[in-house]
């Protein structure tokens, strides 16, 4: 199976799992963008991120408390 076929099979499986309905005429463009998106995800993984590098959206009490949700 070529890399292109693998990506297409990967996308088909995701679509099936999510339950999305993709019209046939839109699939080629979505496949193209999906391949681009996987490259973006791979690019981020080239960054030097160690175990203690925390995400930018780490949870904090201040906004939660002032919004009255806790």
């Amino acid at each position, binding site marked *: 199976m070529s890399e292109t076929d693998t990506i297409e099979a990967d996308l088909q499986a995701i679509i099936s799992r999510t339950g999305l309905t993709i019209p046939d005429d839109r699939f080629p463009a979505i496949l193209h963008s999906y391949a681009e998106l996987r490259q973006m995800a791979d690019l981020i993984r080239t960054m030097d991120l160690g175990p203690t590098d925390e*995400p930018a*959206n780490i949870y904090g009490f201040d906004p939660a408390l002032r919004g009255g949700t806790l």
Partner: protein
Amino acid sequence: MTNSAGADLSYAEAGTKLRNGSVTSRLLTEAALTRIAAVDDKLHSFITVTSDSALAEADAADADFAAGIDKGPMQGIPYALKDIYMTAGVRTTCHSKLLEQNVPTEDCVVATKFKSGGAVMVGKTATHEFAFGGPSFDLPFPPARNPWHLDHIPGGSSSGSGAAVAAGLVRMAMGSDTGGSIRGPAAYCGTVGLKPTYGLVSRRGIFPLSFTLDHAGPLSWSVEDTAITMSVIAGFDPADPASANVPKPDFLSDLKTGVEGLRIAVPRHFYEEAKGVSDETVAAIDASIETLRGLGAVVETVTLPDFELYNATGRIILLAEAFAIHEKDLLSRPLDYGRLTFSRMVLGGTLTATDVTQAFRARRKLADAVNQDILSRYDAIITASSLAPAPRFDEMTSDTLPSWGMQTIPFNVTGNPALSIPTGFSSAGLPLSMQIVAKPFADALTLRIGHALEAASGLSSKRPELETAVAAE
């Protein structure tokens, strides 16, 4: 008053004239409505024009002036809101079939601030569907067009706001910016566009695209108009979880104090090495840099992480959050979305939890690279807004992820204030631009630098000959 609906009066000038009685809010509002009626059937910048309520608000403002009641610098002045800002009793469609008949019962916080400040809303402007899709012809409303050349796109997603301001229909219209949706149309339409610091303007009541990347801000004719608008809308909102509990900045006191001694960093590799950058864009930025040097600023070249890292991080976060917001409708009524919106938005459903978490971890590092590495040594950063002038509608044919040659998304990732400002015109007469970025909550500094450039260039006095273009159609 010229034919540009009173938009030739700056907000400051209009404020003075309203207060000394040499102009009325009704006059300004009627002029705006007349010009909208004259050109907007070709420009398509408005989805809804609120003529009756606008005139009522204008009369109320005039009555307040007569009674000596002063509600602030935008009292009596017309403006518009992008049609994702919820407005009580006024249809808010997000330019989508899904919300075509949506009439909110409450105003968003920004609209509330304008109302309490006595400003006059003349309507709701076109957007890309849900501030995301693209210029589309399969939606309930046509896409806005670029007043400099009607065959060209105005940028997006605050497309109608950019077009309306450039066309002189209103002096300021609000936009939203998740990956460049204020600065992009500002760049393509030749207006000023400020993406404020994340958390400086409340997002509450604005239909979300991406919770952690969405910013609300103005597109204006001039930097001073932007500063005055920010003085009305900025401020802490405890009910917006992202709102920053910081003192409201003073946007006006230092606006005209120049740039002498400021240190400005230029990551030239961001735009010089980018695919599709135009020579004219680079030359116009270079000319602006020389202007700043001539005004006494110190400008030096610096290096940031690869632009594509910022782009990838922003895109992944944006798509994931947008899909989460729209998942239910994407599954249950997919064909009610425009083709472009659907084809792009479903991609968020393909991302893994790890993809998104890694993007958020990258985000912190990339923000540090801007704030700790560069803005600890410099006052501001200059880079391109768009890499080239606005393309034609018939060049926008793809359903794939948009690749418009914008350099805006890094500062959605970092949250820094970023001001897009005109730098000149291409040989085809289309606007060129660049952006000025500063430390978080140093929005006033971006305006100060922008004002110095604007004053030196005189570009804010040049406007499109829209009547000629409309008459030719």
